[in-house]
């Protein structure tokens, strides 16, 4: 149990560092801004208490805000996926998954399931984030395009990182 907590703290620090030191510095285009730090919230165990997931999501957002001088922005967006995650999981996971206390991952639920799960929640996160960032509807379609482009990149990075990091561990 204690080991688990340290494992999550380590993963949290690692993901945040990757986001702010690597991903934020890849500036492909003004339309492509991937945010992969939500992988931390996505891969929390399905049986984790909803209030804890929500709190962790808000905390993650707050840390991101501190590092990108955007008060409240990431907090609001990450909070949304922290809350709505449980509804999707209740719908998409079987009773067995809950009994086994799995974490959502490719090795446990398959490639298609994980990609869809990541895509839906990333889309929700990016929609909230980008519309709040521009803070008006004046560039509605341009922002919409920006959301789609960034979402596809984020999903790509998250899925590939899953394939790289988590597969091996499960096989052992």
């Amino acid at each position, binding site marked *: 149990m204690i080991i688990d907590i340290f494992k999550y703290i380590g993963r949290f620090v690692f993901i945040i560092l990757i986001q702010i030191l690597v991903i934020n510095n890849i500036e492909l285009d*003004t339309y492509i801004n991937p945010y992969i730090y939500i992988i931390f919230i996505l891969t929390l165990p399905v049986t984790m208490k909803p209030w804890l997931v929500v709190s962790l999501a808000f905390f993650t957002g707050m840390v991101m805000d*501190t*590092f990108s001088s955007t008060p*409240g*922005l990431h*907090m609001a967006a990450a*909070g949304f996926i922290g809350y709505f995650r449980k509804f999707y999981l209740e719908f998409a996971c079987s009773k067995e998954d809950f009994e086994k206390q799995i974490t959502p991952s490719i090795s446990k639920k398959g490639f298609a399931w994980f990609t869809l799960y990541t895509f839906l929640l990333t889309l929700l996160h990016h929609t909230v984030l*980008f519309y709040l960032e521009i803070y008006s509807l004046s560039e509605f379609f*341009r922002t919409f395009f920006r959301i789609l482009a960034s979402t596809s990149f984020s999903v790509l990075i998250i899925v590939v990182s899953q394939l790289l990091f988590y597969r091996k561990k499960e096989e052992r």
Partner: protein
Amino acid sequence: MRNLIFFFYKYYTFILFFTLELFSFVVIYQYNHYQRASFLNFTGGMASGFYETVNSTTNYFGLRNMNDSLMAENARLRSQMINAYYQNGFTQTSINDTLYKQQYEYISANVVNNSVGKRNNYITIDKGKLHGIKPDMGVIGSNGVVGIVTSVSDHFSTIRSALNANTKISCMIQKNNAFGSLEWNGDDPKFSSLKYVNKHVPVNSNDEVVTSNFSMLFPQGLPVGKVYAHSIEAGDNFHAIKVELYTNFSTLKNVYVIRNIFKEEQEELQNSLKGDH
């Protein structure tokens, strides 16, 4: 009473979610509407300190380019020095003290964090309150305008760069003093757009765009960019002008924060007029 407790028990996740969400919306609203709300003070410049550590490592990779740009700037400044000019007259009166009073001070600073790819870009620099920087000061680079200071902590400041939806800089076209507002549409970090230039004013490509005399943040006539393309939409009263920015935001390392010594005086005068009607 029991029902109420039951209600809270059943929906406590939602209530938690709703409260935190409300809190973040309030923070976003405050920051967007009251620019002086100092977010940096709230976080204590923690992130900036981290970025400075990272930057002091990565800075070594860019030393050569940085030296080049500093040398170019030195050369340009040297050519503006008084001993670079041939003296035409004999009499050199020394009445500078009363005729010229210094209005702008420049504080040099290093960029520790920067982005160009987002819709709203911010720059963090390594000088702050202790060095005399306050919110709402103009910032320039060695080539042109960079942005406006939004919040300061003791040792760091964040700058809303010109590549930000909320940054509007009062500019004019140098040859005919037609003024407009420089706003970024989020497409390309090399270009920005100059809005609200009246359509009866003639505009040509490659016209110089400089800061206007209406801005209290920048001295008049600082270079901003040059006109890249211009057009008039049917039924529109203003030119649509695309400006090529002189500042290269993606390689920005050294900036100068401008302190306008007369700003308080000017603001005080203008505010006293507001309560006059």
